[in-house]
């Protein structure tokens, strides 16, 4: 079986977790895609950590407002019912557990729920921005990642080697091969995504995986 990276499937699966009215913060990059796959009848309320609720889509070209950008500095819009606040309030909302979930990108994630996604010493040191607060504060933390890096190594590990963003905070890891819940020091495989198999996942992942008794195949196509 050949691995083909599939960001859309990761986003699709995470999107199914949400219920109507959930307040969610989506990290820049892959996590942002989640917003494209929210099921019919479910409205997510997006929080933007640079200071507002009700994050809406990018405006049409030419209609951008330089004073209204997302946490990546890109022009966006605000939906009716949204509101602005300062950075202390923004992170009070995040750290105080008022966000149902956050979806964050991954450099490494391990079976203890540790996440590393902000620093490769000596190589990439962009700073943690809001990632540490989001990981600690959101009620449910989704780590969204391709299952393998460019060299084919598993991004799910027994123990992160990179500096941590947060210790023991990840609840779910969603990759393009399966859905894992972090529990009691292991990745519990809840779903494997067609065309991958349980055996493939167990063989190729460099971590302790427990196959849930209700583990099932899911077709995200």
């Amino acid at each position, binding site marked *: 079986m050949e691995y083909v990276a599939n960001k859309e499937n990761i986003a699709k699966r995470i999107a199914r977790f949400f219920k109507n009215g959930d*307040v969610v913060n989506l990290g820049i990059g892959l996590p942002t895609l989640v917003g494209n796959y929210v099921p019919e009848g479910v409205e997510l309320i997006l929080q933007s950590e640079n200071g507002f609720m009700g994050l809406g889509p990018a405006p049409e070209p030419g209609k951008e407002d330089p004073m209204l950008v997302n946490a990546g500095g890109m022009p966006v819009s605000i939906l009716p019912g949204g*509101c602005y606040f300062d950075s202390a309030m923004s992170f*009070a*909302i995040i750290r*105080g557990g*008022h966000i149902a979930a956050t979806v964050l990108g991954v450099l490494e994630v391990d079976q203890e729920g540790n996440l590393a996604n902000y620093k490769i010493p000596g190589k990439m040191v962009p700073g943690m921005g809001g990632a540490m607060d989001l990981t600690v504060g959101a009620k449910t933390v989704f780590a969204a990642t391709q299952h393998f890096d460019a060299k084919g190594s598993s991004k799910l590990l027994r123990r992160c080697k990179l500096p941590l963003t947060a210790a023991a905070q990840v609840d779910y890891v969603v990759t393009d091969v399966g859905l894992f819940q972090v529990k009691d020091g292991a990745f519990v495989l809840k779903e494997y995504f067609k065309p991958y198999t349980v055996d493939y996942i167990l063989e190729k992942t460099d971590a302790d995986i427990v196959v849930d008794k209700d583990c099932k195949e899911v077709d995200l196509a």
Partner: protein
Amino acid sequence: MVQKPIVTADEAVKLIKEGDAVMVGGFLGCGSPTGLIAALEKRGTGKMTLICNDCAMYNPKTGEMNGVAPLVAKKRFSTAVISHIGTNPEIQRQMNEGETDVQLVPQGTLAERIRAAGAGLGGVLTPTGLGTEVQDGKKVVEVDGAKFLLEKALSGDVALIRAKKADKSGNCVYDKSGRNFNPLMAMACGTVIVEADEIVEIGELDPEVVVTPSVFVTHLVQGRK
């Protein structure tokens, strides 16, 4: 934007259970949710903890009272965490006779403790209360040579909030000095019931002027005209 349930005051106070810690906005009655207070007085649940700036005004000669004073008179609360009780002789009597456990907290410390709970902080370091009875039993932490009291975050189960306007998603604005503790308490409880003088459609409030973002609010009640 998803709407929050609009309920009656009587329905709303059913969300409060015996023994709950209940935060009530207002300062000497100004900015208190009077409809919710009346419903809670009527309901009769006792043994709760009141977290409030003060016990409002009560004149035993005339029987006049405002704010949370009716709840004190009916002894709905067995504990009060509070900064000022000087305008309510009944709570002073209850304290002196050991009927109610009154925990006095400096007003600014009360505000920060509630905000800290809402903001996911464990507490704050404040110079207020150093060298006074407020220090008793508390950790003193030195930061760069200066001493501070460690004051712990203070959360509640239910907040009763009075807003001037709320939109149907829960965004709130307040009315003059009626703002006081309301926006802080709205951050610090799992159930946050807003009694609004006016409930407006989503999109009617200017996003620049919202004081309490909708994310904190769980229920709306139409205030009494």
